[in-house]
């Protein structure tokens, strides 16, 4: 193969590193005004009145409230519970209440500060543990957005009981480019939205409902990272920009400041996972019961799907004859949580892996041995009754162990380290991750793509976006390989909903595996169409081109066809939850300062079953970036909130993500166990690197210091606090 399995340079790379790529804030439409958002200062209150400060000069300022919405006041997604602008009542701090626009950004921000809102406070519910059955109603009958129970097998009568409770915190996506959007009028009295986003068709759907008509199109600007944070939230900022544009009668740009972005937009769901298992004396799992509670925040957003994916990964990659899983995602008066790389799975996999370590500890066996014994193999059956094939669990475990035998890199002394007392530890964790949408999701989505032959070039038309992961380069490679042509003859069309079909959202580790397969089929059809048109049976693309007698553009379309053998019952939660799974094993070596609890990463070794690496350089980039994001979540990243849910760590100096010097040496091995339904065998890899590392870090700290950490993030403060607890327990 000439174009597959090769690390060809990414098509968007040069423009990005030379600063030539055009992001939304680089666009300056003529006469464009700037928008700002007036946000709620309380978590739950009735809005008594909204007034303009009479002392402020309101010349050249427009104000928008819920009354200005031409269609429905809703951000349409799964349910319609979230308003575009609070109307009568606010349900979380930072909820948008009003909007302003002015000729300059500073003036818009100033004006927003001079919109006065009078509130009548209402009772506030912030603790998710208090949500179900609380007299304070936020959502439905009992504050539950979604509850799921799955059972399989009969409970065993004997076995040793091992119980554990695990907690994970919020996480902020911290894409480099904050949320941003421009709305401008079209000649047909419709609107065009251009912005930083992952899913143009989600925004389109929301805007149609808001505007009450469908004269709207959505264009993706170059996007500086998403990680799920630009899956659902762009619909909100797009709705706001659209309303301001209508009221001001001119283009309006909204760019969030970093602090506003961190305070107001979605985060990873915090979760509490309680696990009770029964194990045989040799360590074999007999029963696994998990109860999961996630904090959804004030509105539904994507929470039902997050709890679902969390549940479906809550056993970890281990076979067990009896499994009972129950999970609920509940409402609180907090800013809504939403999509973040991993989408519920990192939360439950952290708990599952810590629980495997707990079993090993209580049985006096090695964590590695316990894992080897229980790991899923081909033919094993999951909690939903899915028989697994193409299982890479054992392969990635042995590959990672082999790679970790290499000597560790030397420690470079850091300035200001003084007499730090480092203790070393190693931890291991495994993960599996379902690729693509859950259950019938892909059948329901019907992801489409098209290929157009124009001027001897092939143009890929897809709504699947480039968000830094390399999707455009991958699609280009797939088409070039399928047609046997060079990469420079393939281009990816601009992501404008007026021009490209709906490929489904750019989420769920589905872009390469699912949309890539659709793109591959459009290329096959292109060849067939050329053969039909020319009457030639040649497979050679240039021969077919030369045989054409017309020069008209040619287009082929395709819609995703899920494997007909996959069966899923949405009501009973049984059947094939995912077309296939990715598998990963991570081994972290770290030092932790026993005086301060500060962790320094030495090396992160991983082996991941990617099915087939279309572009190994991009695949490794995804895996290493994801691992670093997970290591940050493990020890650095803490969303600090006050008692009404307002985020206080709202800047990059207070919400701490790792820098390059905090990064360990990364050793990344690709294992390729192909999935027949993916292009050239590819599985999805976007999320799996987020799943395992935090548990490996906890295990490594445990080895280094002898303290058991079952709560994320493991900040220095928490490590030291746990050491204090361990010390006081030992002295009694």
């Amino acid at each position, binding site marked *: 193969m000439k174009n597959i399995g090769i690390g060809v340079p990414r098509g968007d790379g040069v423009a990005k590193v030379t600063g030539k790529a055009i992001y939304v804030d680089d*666009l*300056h*439409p*003529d006469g*464009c005004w700037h928008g700002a958002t007036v946000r709620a200062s309380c978590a739950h209150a009735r809005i008594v009145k909204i007034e303009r400060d009479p002392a402020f000069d309101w010349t050249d300022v427009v104000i928008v409230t819920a009354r200005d919405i031409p269609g429905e006041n809703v951000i349409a997604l799964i349910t319609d519970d979230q308003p575009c602008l609070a109307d009568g009542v606010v349900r979380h701090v930072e909820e948008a209440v009003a909007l302003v626009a002015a000729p*300059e*950004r*500073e003036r818009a*921000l100033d004006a927003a500060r001079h919109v006065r809102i009078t509130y009548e406070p209402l009772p506030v519910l912030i603790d998710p543990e208090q949500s179900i059955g609380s007299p304070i109603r936020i959502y439905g009958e009992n504050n539950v957005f979604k509850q799921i129970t799955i059972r399989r097998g009969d409970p065993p009568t004997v076995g040793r009981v091992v119980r554990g409770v695990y907690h994970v915190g919020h996480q902020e996506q911290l894409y480099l480019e904050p949320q941003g959007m421009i709305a401008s009028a079209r000649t047909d009295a419709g609107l065009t939205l251009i912005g930083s986003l992952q899913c143009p068709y989600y925004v389109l759907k929301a805007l149609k409902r808001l505007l009450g008509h469908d004269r709207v199109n959505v264009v993706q600007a170059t996007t500086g990272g998403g990680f799920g944070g630009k899956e659902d939230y762009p619909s909100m900022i797009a709705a706001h920009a659209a309303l301001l544009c209508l009221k001001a009668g001119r283009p309006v740009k909204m760019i969030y*400041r970093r*602090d506003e972005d961190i305070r107001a937009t979605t985060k990873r769901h915090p979760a509490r996972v309680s696990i009770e298992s029964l194990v045989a004396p040799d360590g074999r799992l007999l029963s696994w019961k998990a109860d999961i509670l996630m904090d959804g925040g004030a509105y539904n957003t994507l929470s039902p799907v997050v709890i679902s994916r969390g549940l479906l990964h809550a056993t970890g990659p281990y076979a067990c004859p009896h499994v009972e899983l129950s999970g609920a995602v509940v409402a609180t008066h907090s800013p809504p949580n939403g999509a973040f790389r991993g989408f519920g799975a990192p939360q439950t996999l952290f708990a599952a892996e810590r629980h495997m370590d707990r079993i090993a500890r209580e049985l006096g066996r090695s964590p590695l041995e316990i894992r080897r014994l229980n790991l899923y193999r081909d033919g094993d059956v999951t909690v939903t009754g899915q028989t697994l094939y193409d299982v890479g669990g054992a392969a990635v475990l042995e590959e990672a162990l082999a790679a970790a035998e290499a000597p560790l890199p030397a420690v470079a002394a*850091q*300035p*200001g*380290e*003084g*007499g730090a*007392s480092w203790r070393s530890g190693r931890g291991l964790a495994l993960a599996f991750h379902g690729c693509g949408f859950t259950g019938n999701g892909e059948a329901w989505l019907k992801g489409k793509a098209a290929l157009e032959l124009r001027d001897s070039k092939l143009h890929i038309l897809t709504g699947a976006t480039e968000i830094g992961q390399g999707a455009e380069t991958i699609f280009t490679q797939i088409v070039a390989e399928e047609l046997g042509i060079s990469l420079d003859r393939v281009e990816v069309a601009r992501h404008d909903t007026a021009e490209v079909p709906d490929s489904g959202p750019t989420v769920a580790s589905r872009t390469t595996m699912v949309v890539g397969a659709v793109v591959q089929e459009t290329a096959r059809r292109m060849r067939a169409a050329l053969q039909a048109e020319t009457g030639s049976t040649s497979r050679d693309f240039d021969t077919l081109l030369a045989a054409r007698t017309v020069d008209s553009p040619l287009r082929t379309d395709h819609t995703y066809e899920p494997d007909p053998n996959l069966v899923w019952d949405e009501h009973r939660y049984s059947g094939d939850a995912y077309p296939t799974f990715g598998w990963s094993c991570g081994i972290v070596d770290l030092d932790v300062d026993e*005086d*301060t*609890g*500060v962790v*320094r990463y030495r090396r992160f070794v991983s082996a991941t079953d990617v099915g087939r690496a279309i572009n190994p350089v991009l695949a490794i980039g995804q895996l290493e970036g994801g691992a670093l994001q997970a290591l940050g979540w493990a020890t*650095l990243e803490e969303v*600090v909130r006050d008692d009404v849910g307002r985020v*206080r*760590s709202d*800047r*990059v*100096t*207070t919400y*701490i993500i*790792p*820098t*390059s*010097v*905090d990064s360990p040496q990364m050793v990344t091995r690709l294992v390729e166990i192909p999935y027949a339904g993916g292009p050239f065998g590819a599985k999805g890899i976007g999320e799996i690197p987020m799943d395992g590392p935090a548990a490996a870090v906890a295990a490594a700290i445990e080895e280094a210091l002898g303290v058991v950490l079952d709560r994320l993030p493991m*900040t*220095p*403060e928490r490590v*030291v*606090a746990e050491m*204090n607890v361990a010390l006081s327990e030992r002295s009694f």
Partner: protein
Amino acid sequence: MSGPAPTYGGAVVTARDLPEALALRAQFPEAVVLAGGTDLMVMMEAGQLRPGRVLNLWGCAGLRTISEDGGHFGALATWTDVARHPAVHPALRECARTVGALQIQNRGTVGGNIVNASPAGDSLPLWLALDAVFEVASLRGARRIAAADFWVGYRRTALAPDELLTGVTVAPAGADAVLYRKVGTRLAQAISKVVVGARIRQVEGTVTEARIALGSVGPVPLRARRVEALLVERGLDPDAADAVVDDIAPIDDVRSTAVWRRQVAQRVLRRWLVEQRAFSARNARQ
């Protein structure tokens, strides 16, 4: 499509040398002073500061020099200048390399760190430990202020409105044991959560002078006077570190907790004292 990026709307006055700087300072005592700008830009971007006027000193090249013996610093010496100067005390050079990251070290200045007066300022405890003297000047004349008298309250200094910091002098530390320790959450671009500068002088096995200073553990960088007194009284006794918890007044904030800061301050000092005692014992045997 065209249009400019937003720019700073206030006035900027720029000085080329010290006399010009002092004249402008006298004329505009309300102006916010810009040295390297590494704190100022962050505060302006965060909306915490919207100065009507900025006095830009960055071009005053004469204030950037470090003396050949490494004992005198112009206020505009950058952290890169400090880190690269071979005669500067190793603890100060080490400190310089903990400030922000390379880009910040290229712009951030000694004087900016001192006058910004953040309780978390990376270098401040070290100036206290080294008995630094700050040279300040105005059109009215020049004067010297000991580091221990400079930070008078949360983000407040002893500078008069018309005064500028022009330089810093540190006494030679000779064979004194000097510690610089910065505990942040990550290795670069980190604001200290506990920062320690310490110096102990021994004459024939007796502690004659102890300076133990800490930052991020109170409203100002401060000296742990109880620990200092115990060290002079008892010699290199690691237990003296325990007294630090009464010398400092840390708080819970968005970065850390008071409990952790107290414990870390005590442990960092204790470990250093244990090391110094062992080192002294080895020297005494030789």
